[in-house]
């Protein structure tokens, strides 16, 4: 079971002080939070991708590369990478480089974006959202898997004899998740390829999330990737912990009430009743999180949204300390009753082991002038 954080990267005022961090502070705070995630023993840090204020993560691989340099074990991911408006060639290049730099500590989650205008900003049309996600991802997969790509599609310049450089680390593309809150076609896409499916599990009631996951699991089996209960499922979630419930509610309420996404909407109590948001003692957060399995089945990745709504860095780090305290119980809880045939989410290491350890890279780069190969020279 992978447990980690996903960050939307909003620059929001702290409603209790009125202070808004600068974009620079927010970016550096994100780095501090990711480092803290590794320190407390979390497995994953995933950044959002946004191209408009009040968000800062417009260049995810720059951020993740910087974090990769300062961490050792943390798996770096996205939530989400815009497969609709980014050029799939650039995505392939960026994440291929990040794989090499981080030693394979990379996977990514495809998504379509949360704001309409991002499409025209990048020369696309939101009405083609799903079609873009389908075509671009189909190309992305080929770029990572084939050395010589001839390709023609609707949305991008054709390619003739294109070779992605650099090739993925050890010839193994990063594992891919597909995030979708309510679009069945995306769950189908994840199932078709045998990729992971992630539900953000923030806004919707459990019944809805459960239906999306059931669809993905059923279609995963249909497409021949294995039994439905072995499909690779990830869930989001959010919490705020205090030493006791009353403290947690009192401390979090002003942030909830002013939060950019749901502030000035339902009451905190309603939101907690209707959605996975857990605000309470560590024990309460533990119990609510472990109950996700009741509707999602045994799953592979749990990401929490912690740094948002203007919560100051100090508070976020404190929340992570509390998360670190319940982490062993969380892991034990997730392991409880988990049948042996339920797989873990694939990682670079596990895919490398499956492929056969230490196999030579599929593509020996050759200097096109001298004809020498650094691989041959290394072997000589």
């Amino acid at each position, binding site marked *: 079971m992978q447990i980690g954080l996903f960050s939307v990267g909003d620059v929001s005022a702290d409603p209790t002080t009125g202070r808004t961090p600068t974009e620079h502070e927010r970016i550096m705070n994100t780095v501090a939070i990711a480092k803290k995630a590794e320190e407390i023993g979390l497995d994953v840090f995933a950044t959002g991708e946004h191209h408009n204020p009040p968000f800062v993560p417009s260049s995810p691989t720059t951020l993740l590369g910087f974090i990769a340099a300062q961490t050792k074990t943390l798996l770096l991911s996205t939530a989400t990478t815009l497969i609709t408006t980014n050029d799939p060639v650039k995505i392939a290049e960026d994440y291929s480089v990040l794989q090499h730099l981080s030693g394979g500590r990379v996977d990514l989650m495809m998504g379509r974006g949360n704001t309409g205008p991002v499409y025209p900003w990048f020369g696309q049309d939101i009405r083609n959202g799903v079609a873009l996600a389908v075509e671009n991802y189909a190309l992305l997969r080929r770029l990572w898997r084939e050395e010589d790509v001839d390709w023609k599609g609707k949305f991008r310049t054709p390619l003739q004899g294109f070779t992605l450089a650099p090739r993925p680390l050890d010839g193994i593309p990063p594992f891919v998740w597909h995030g979708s809150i309510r679009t069945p*076609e995306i769950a189908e896409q994840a*199932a078709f390829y045998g990729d992971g499916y992630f539900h953000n599990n923030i806004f919707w009631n459990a019944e809805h999330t459960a239906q999306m996951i059931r669809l993905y699991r059923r*279609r995963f089996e249909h497409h021949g990737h294995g039994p439905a209960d072995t499909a690779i499922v990830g869930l989001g979630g959010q919490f705020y912990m205090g030493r006791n419930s009353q403290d947690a509610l009192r401390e979090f309420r002003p942030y909830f009430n002013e939060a950019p996404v*749901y502030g000035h*909407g339902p009451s905190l109590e309603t939101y907690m009743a*209707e959605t996975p948001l857990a605000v309470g003692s560590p024990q309460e957060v533990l119990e609510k999180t472990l109950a996700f399995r009741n509707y999602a089945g045994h799953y592979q990745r749990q990401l929490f949204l912690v740094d948002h709504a203007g919560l100051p860095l100090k508070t976020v780090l404190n929340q992570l300390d509390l998360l670190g305290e319940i982490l062993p119980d969380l892991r034990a809880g997730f392991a409880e009753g988990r049948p042996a045939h339920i797989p873990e989410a694939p990682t670079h290491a596990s895919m490398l082991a499956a492929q056969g350890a230490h196999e030579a890279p599929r593509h020996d780069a050759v200097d096109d002038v001298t004809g020498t190969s650094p691989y041959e020279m290394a072997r000589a």
Partner: protein
Amino acid sequence: MTNLVVVSAGTGIPSLSTKLADRLADATVRGLGGEVQVKHLELRTLARDLADALVGGVRSAALREAFDMLCTADGVIAVTPVYNASYSGLFKLFFDMVDRETLRGRPVLIAANGGSARHSLMLDTAMLPMFHYLKAFVAPTGVFAATEDWADEYLVPRIERAGTEFAAFMRAHPAPTPEDPFAVADFSTLLGN
């Protein structure tokens, strides 16, 4: 069994909009004959949930139940008070939150309640375009009731006629079976193979 859903955006208790809606429902039930299940949606009871859904993105259990009712309705009677020459904000918000495909091909009887007969064309200028946008089948005869109509003997036969015609309209236009929102085409068709 026929399912008739009666939506009223009346805000008072009692409400003339709701009274109009109930009478239209009675007339429709008489016209339909047989077994009819009538379900009432009083939007005033959903006002807070609708605002929360709009701003906070969370659909309450009560809202989900209301939307499910529409999905299985053989006919919908939709009644609003007139505010500023149009439907009320509450009425619009409810239909803004309904999934876009819900009303496609579903028979709808429109009616409104206003302070003056001078608003009566709002059925055609405001309500009709919205329901057309949602691809509902709107019955040709709607009812506009001005305050003075409630003292006018002709309101009763107008309601009766609208109900009788709506019953015939419902029989002529069976509502489509609701689509499974989680149904999906095989990915190979999405890939264009």
